[in-house]
């Protein structure tokens, strides 16, 4: 009896002192913030490699190492169907910053062009400057204890220039989804086979997305391979980055840009392949960790949210008009083979609602009796006008040209996803937002709102999510609202 009384008193005391936030520490939540991270996501890129640079649409991104230790940024370019077509490493001296113009990659077969022939790319042999204060002094290029022993050699001369044949292959894969040859292990499908065996969508410009991970060595493995997690990926939140999309149209040129998505490793630190417990229910790279022996959370990357509330204006020729750049988690795991990638070409969307400026709401076609109609499925990355009523609900009859969209981009889950346990041990069904023992977790997504008005007004802003990546997925048809929290 005394024991019970003591415990009750203890628990009561605990509850009294359990004020929020639960944590004030850095790198200790599921919230995606613009802070140094272990993975950067460029949700959408587009490159017109067929035009001269002076008129070509292109995307640039920049990666900064905000630590004094050297770091290796492992870049992967993915098609819009989630095929990892190119990886390359950027060696970053302490406090280094490196810009990459994807036009150089797709049109010139050069990564990080140098000031002359033979000096492109990045290298561990870069000279480290001597700076005036200790706090701004980069460490030597071998001073990162997480580097693998082979880093000194494999990072010594990272390729700035790659072969023209690879560039042609990339050009073709990122515009037609069809490889030139069997170099990727995916032979070009016979003519007339449609989307089957393709690796990406068909569009005149190269379109895809990029991930940038902090890594222990300069390897060519991709995040779709198990070996990446057991031997390459690191966990240090040290990278920041931004991007710009340039649209040259002579005197009507414009640019849009924003921060990359900063995805932190939680907890931070440790050697490549280290298995450290995390309370994240699942992780950004979850779908690629199915084959690992023990821990589906091995990458420790924060997951991204599923529901967003972007604003729109579709003001016609004389006003601002909005398009959304949407990134979506694929439904394939690391065991995907060539013929599987088409499944990432049309990933379902749970729900979309359009509100005008007078709060009138629309959904797709006449109100259903049994189940709401769903938006069109989408590829894993795309830029689409909010006036496109194939993907978004129709405009209301009010005549309002502005408003906002509620997008629950959950794809309904995939067998490649893990279903984890939420502390303190409650099994959770992410698909239906119930706490049962079965079901598939919600999917991850990201949305960027782009607005443009003639001749050259262009803005871009990250769309607001309604909760963090660990928040329960909203049920279709539920009251639209911010995600719940400990103090509703």
């Amino acid at each position, binding site marked *: 009896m005394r024991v019970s009384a003591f415990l009750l008193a*203890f628990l009561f005391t605990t509850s009294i002192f359990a*004020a*929020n*936030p639960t*944590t*004030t520490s*850095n790198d*200790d*939540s*599921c*919230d995606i*913030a*613009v*802070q140094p991270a272990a993975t950067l996501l460029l949700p959408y890129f587009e490159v017109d490699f067929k035009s001269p640079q002076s008129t070509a649409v292109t995307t640039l991104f*920049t990666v*900064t190492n905000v*630590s004094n230790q050297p770091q290796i940024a492992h870049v992967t370019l993915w098609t819009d169907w989630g095929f990892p077509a190119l990886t390359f490493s950027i060696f970053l001296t302490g*406090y*280094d*910053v490196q*810009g990459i113009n994807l036009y150089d990659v797709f049109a010139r077969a050069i990564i990080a062009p140098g000031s002359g022939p033979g000096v492109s790319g990045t290298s561990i042999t870069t*000279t480290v400057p001597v700076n*005036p204060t*200790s*706090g*701004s002094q980069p460490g030597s290029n071998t001073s990162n204890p997480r580097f693998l022993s082979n880093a000194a050699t494999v990072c010594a001369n990272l390729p700035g220039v790659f072969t023209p044949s690879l560039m042609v292959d990339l050009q073709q894969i990122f515009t037609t989804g069809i490889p030139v040859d069997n170099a990727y292990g995916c032979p070009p499908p016979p003519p007339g086979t449609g989307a089957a065996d393709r690796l990406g969508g068909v569009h005149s410009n190269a379109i895809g997305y990029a991930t940038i991970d902090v890594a222990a060595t300069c390897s060519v493995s991709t995040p779709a391979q198990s070996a990446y997690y057991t031997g390459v990926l690191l966990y240090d*939140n040290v990278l*920041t980055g*931004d991007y710009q999309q340039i649209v040259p149209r002579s005197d009507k040129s*414009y*640019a849009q*840009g*924003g921060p990359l998505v*900063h995805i932190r490793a*939680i*907890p931070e630190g440790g050697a490549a392949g280290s298995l450290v417990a995390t*309370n*994240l229910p699942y992780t950004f790279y979850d779908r690629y960790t199915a084959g690992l022996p023990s821990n589906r959370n091995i990458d420790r990357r924060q997951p991204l949210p599923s529901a967003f509330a972007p*604003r729109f204006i579709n003001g016609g020729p004389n006003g601002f008009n909005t398009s959304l750049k949407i990134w979506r988690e694929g439904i394939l795991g690391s065991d995907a083979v060539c013929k599987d990638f088409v499944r990432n070409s049309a990933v379902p969307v749970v729900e979309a*609602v359009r*509100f005008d400026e*007078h*709060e009138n*709401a629309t*959904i797709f076609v006449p109100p259903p009796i049994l189940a709401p109609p769903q938006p069109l499925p989408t590829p894993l990355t795309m830029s689409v006008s909010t006036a496109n009523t194939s993907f978004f609900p129709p405009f209301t009859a009010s005549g309002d040209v*502005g*408003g906002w969209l509620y997008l629950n981009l959950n794809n309904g889950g995939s067998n490649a996803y893990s279903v984890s346990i939420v502390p*303190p041990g409650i099994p959770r069904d992410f698909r239906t937002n119930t706490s049962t023992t079965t079901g598939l977790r919600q999917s991850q997504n990201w949305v960027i709102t782009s607005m443009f008005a003639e001749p*050259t007004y262009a*803005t*871009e802003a990250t769309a*607001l*999510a*309604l*909760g963090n990546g660990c*928040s329960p997925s909203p049920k279709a048809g539920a009251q*639209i609202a*911010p*995600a719940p*929290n400990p103090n509703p």
Partner: protein
Amino acid sequence: MKILTFVLLLLLTGTASAATPPSTIANDDSCDVALLPAATLLLPYFEVDFLSPSTTAYTTLFTVQNTTAQPQIARVTLWTDWAYPMLTFNIFLTGYDIQSINLWDVFARGVIAPGAPGQPGGTSNRTAVPQNFWPPGAQPLQNDQNPHFLADAATTCASNPGPIDAALLAELRSAFTTGNISRPDCMVANKVGSNNHGANAVGYATIDVVANCNANSPLSAFYFDRELLFDNVLLGDAQHLSPNSVTGNYAGGNPLVHIRAVPEGGAAGSVVATDLPYTFYDLYTTGAAVRTQDRRQPLPSAFMTHFIEGGTAAFNTKLQIWREALAAPTSCPIAYSSNASVEIADEVRFDEHENATYVPCAGIVGEHPCPNPLLASTSSHPMTYELFPPAATSGDIAGWIYLNLNNRGSSAYSSTRNYGFGSTVVGRRQSQGWVVTSMFAEGRFAVEMDAPAVGNGCSPAPDLSTRAAIGPAP
């Protein structure tokens, strides 16, 4: 003995479990400032050329969005660049409502949220609520169905003014361009803003969720005791427009800073414990029994942002910098001029080859960090500004800048632990800041984005780079 063992086991288990990061996966449960529905939105910098016609005038617009079915009231406060709250107005938001404000309308036309031709503008709780038959989850509630509204909301929000009185408009223009106002306790000699930004009105704005449509600003104790709410329901973004074909037709846009109340919820004036060490409105709660009563997340103090200075044919960079005011708000004649030039703890500029430069100090040979660069509460400056470190001699046109905007504390700040370069037992907390990076080229290309912060607003203030390595917060 058994009891002791059991309790120890319990404690050990609890400790071990709590030690596995992240400590929380819950929404609205951390000190991280993220793009999620919030209780306060900060527009860190606005600029309006109200003397030019709208077709050529530089202006700032912002939009506020209510993500809930319940109606909400957004209290907007426009502050001068020395942190004087010059104007407040309310935006009544029906459930799922969205409202844009063009600050050119405010400063040039004297109208808030202009209505249709012949209509006075403004917002009102008399707005018709639509009937959204499908989906049911998109139905706004009636305009009185927010249980946190005060009883007087029904009357005070019935007609939020669109037009601004002519005398007030003149006062606004004066305060935001010259810093001069006619208040007897803030005479011309004791200005409330600077006059170093030409004819354009410059300042910043806060937008809070509140319980009625009064005119109180965060300067009033009533604001926190009776009006401020704690619901994380607002979203917002801003655009800076430059529609001048001579200087360039370009726009920059970015989300507003989304500052959440943690924990969320409760009636106006409710005092709920928070583990936030201090809060966004800390400076304005000096008389309160609980200094954290606004429960707003604090902002970080140190930032690291990319820049390009490419000359006439390439991108160039400006930084919009918001800084927490230094001065207590009660003594106008002293307070606001004290916010004119507030110390920055540390600045270091890195080029693309990692060469570091500091602001050179007069009379000191060689490159040493100059201890006291100064900036006001909000400002926008190019990277060539004299108070930023100079470019390195490498010839690199790009790089990044480390800005530790900590003003080293104010006696008006609360201090629950020492944030002054460490975490010991004495000292004042660090100050809050925010940085937006604006890049533009040739009068056509322009991008704008939040600068990455070193850590969150609860992270310890970084030590000076003369003593500790620049890097992410621990």
